[in-house]
């Protein structure tokens, strides 16, 4: 075990995967010698050379298309999109191409080796364009896996699993936690399985669900609720597509209640999908409506960021409302 922050854990995962797989390439804007604007790729060019870790020109469309081409020809590209807000120029290449390579060709071709890494989320005074959580645009696209870690140990294990998964994966990294989240991380090579949710804390009265940086928010809210005698079961979904329905459904059958929290706007957010599915699975067990604590239906703001965020206090209030329904 070693103490690492999330960036170091990601860097460690990339290094281990590159060592094991000579076909793996790491590239994106500023990721070369500089190590990326957040330094997730620090030192990789020094170790593996400019052919395997390099700066690309400033074109997300180019990066994604290039990555698709590499993967279709048997390589393992790990492409960085500097901020998730800037993934949209690559949208066509990702949702129409990465996601559909295998299906449209009858598996004559696929881009299974492909991973996109990108920092997402707010809480860093970035305003819109440095704070968005665009996961739902991708969970709505069959053919992609969408993964979000919440701490360094998970980031390393999930990233190694994502890189080795035979499907294209988008790996959203909560940039708010890059340096803030520090923890013990196993030193060697290990994988945290995709599509499996984690019960972070077990409880009796309500299941509260999130992913990435919002899991900490749930933990804070659960502590507040505890003081009022409410026991929360906290679940980290970890993989959003395809997601672990069974673990969530089982928990809700036990607690009878569900709250989902995410930073992206409420309308069209992934919470809606979870709510609809769990309602279907657990209808007769539910004791109150499934509730959602999410971002507002506005673009991500700057000066009212604190008010906008689905924070612990709002979550706590929603937990009480659900219990007292």
């Amino acid at each position, binding site marked *: 075990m070693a103490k690492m922050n999330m960036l170091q854990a990601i860097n460690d995962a990339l290094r281990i995967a590159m060592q094991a797989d000579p076909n793996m390439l790491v590239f994106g*804007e*500023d990721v*070369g*010698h*500089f*190590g990326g*604007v957040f330094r997730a790729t620090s030192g990789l060019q020094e170790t593996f050379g400019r052919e395997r870790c*390099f*700066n690309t*020109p*400033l*074109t*997300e*469309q*180019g990066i994604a298309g290039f990555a698709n081409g590499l993967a279709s020809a048997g390589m393992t590209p790990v492409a960085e999109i500097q901020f998730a*807000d*800037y993934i*949209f*120029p690559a949208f066509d290449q990702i949702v129409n191409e990465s996601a559909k390579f295998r299906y449209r060709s009858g598996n004559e071709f696929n881009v299974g080796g492909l991973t996109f890494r990108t920092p997402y989320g707010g809480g860093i*005074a*970035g*305003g*819109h*364009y*440095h704070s968005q959580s665009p996961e739902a645009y991708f969970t709505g696209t069959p053919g992609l896996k969408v993964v979000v870690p919440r701490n360094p140990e998970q980031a390393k294990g999930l990233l190694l699993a994502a890189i080795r998964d035979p499907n294209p994966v988008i790996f959203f990294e909560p940039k708010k936690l890059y340096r803030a989240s520090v923890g013990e991380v196993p030193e060697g090579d290990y994988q945290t399985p995709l599509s499996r949710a984690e019960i972070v804390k077990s409880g009796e009265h309500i299941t509260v669900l999130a992913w990435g940086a919002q899991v900490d928010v749930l933990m804070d809210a659960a502590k507040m609720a505890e003081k009022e005698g409410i026991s929360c079961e906290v679940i980290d979904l970890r993989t959003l597509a395809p997601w672990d329905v069974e673990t969530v459904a089982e928990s809700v059958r036990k607690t009878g209640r569900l709250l989902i929290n995410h930073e992206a706007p*409420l*309308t069209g957010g992934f919470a809606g999908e979870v709510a609809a599915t769990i309602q279907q699975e657990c209808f007769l067990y539910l004791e109150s409506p499934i509730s959602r604590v999410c971002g*507002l*239906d*506005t*673009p991500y*703001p*700057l*000066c*009212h960021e*604190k*008010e*906008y965020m689905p924070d612990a*206090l*709002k979550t706590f*209030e929603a937990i009480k409302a659900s219990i007292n329904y």
Partner: protein
Amino acid sequence: MTDATRSKQSQRVEHRVNFIDGNALDIPILKILQADGTTYDGAVEPIIDKTLALKIYDTCVFTRVLDDRMLGAQRQGRISFYMTCTGEEASVIGSAAALDDGDVILAQYREHAALRYRGFTTEQFMNQMFSNELDLGKGRQMPIHYGCNALNYQTISSPLATQIPQATGVGYALKMQGKRNLAICYFGEGAASEGDFHAGLNMAAVSGAPVIFFCRNNGYAISTPTEEQYAGDGIASRGVGYGMHTIRIDGNDMLAVLAATQQARAYAIEHHAPVLIEAMTYRLGAHSSSDDPSGYRSREEEGQWREHDPVQRFKLWLVNKGWLTEAEDTQLYQDYREEILAQVKVAEKIPAPALEQLIEDVLDTPTPALKQQLAQLKQHISQYPKSYPKLSGRG
């Protein structure tokens, strides 16, 4: 469509394989003003009188002082973020000075000097940077994302290069409306790698939109040097490829920038056609207040570029002309330092926009869902006023 934009193809025929070398284009660079403030022999000066020259210089000094002070304010934690124009003042101000007030500016983010030239007040700059209730952008974007309809300066958007095809649309609109105006679009050599750059230039060339595409080729895109950004003869060669009037200029030479932009403007309006200007310059400062250039370039390199300081070079020209004295220059810096400091203190005390503004402008009117979300939020804040201090004590 005009003759200027009609497509044509060379009729020259060959019977042997003969590739054109990708580096065969050899685009010259326009230089008018020398380092000592005199002009090159045979150089043709732009149209410039004392009033214009002093207005340009005033904007240079304002921009230098603003950049210096606001970077300081960022380090003190008074604002969250900043980006400077330092080193590129001649490119931005020289081009802005060649325009008509009715020309629409679509900038990338490092061109606040052009907005100042148009008349944006110190107070307006501060209100934006402090996200207070007087900010025209209602506190929604990070510092430096200015915009002002009255001054024909479209609001900055962070996703790079999105303004380039938009500028083509604006230029075409101005043409359709029968105005003798154009759009000017600023971007970096990094942004010129985006698909939007190619889409925007091609659309402009084909549709005959009066647009000046102004590339600030300042050597770096964050840490990425130009050698890793593009191959071939700079960005100017792309303009040639799209069949567009193109020029490369010394971007640290105020007179060269002014002359080229004046003529580009006349041509674009006259012929309903786009023009590409590539200004060779250097980003003297860090990319932004979040960046540390020592990780990717040397102090020596920066030092060499300091010797090409565009503001200093232009100042020497003014002094040589007898239009500016050292004493006046010192006074100008002094006055702006005081004014900016004073305005910082005012702006940071002005409260944040009201919470209601959070749900405005998503659509023309707030949706029922948004109104409900706002009501819930207000109720929640009134329950926990101490946890949301920015808005406590306000409606």
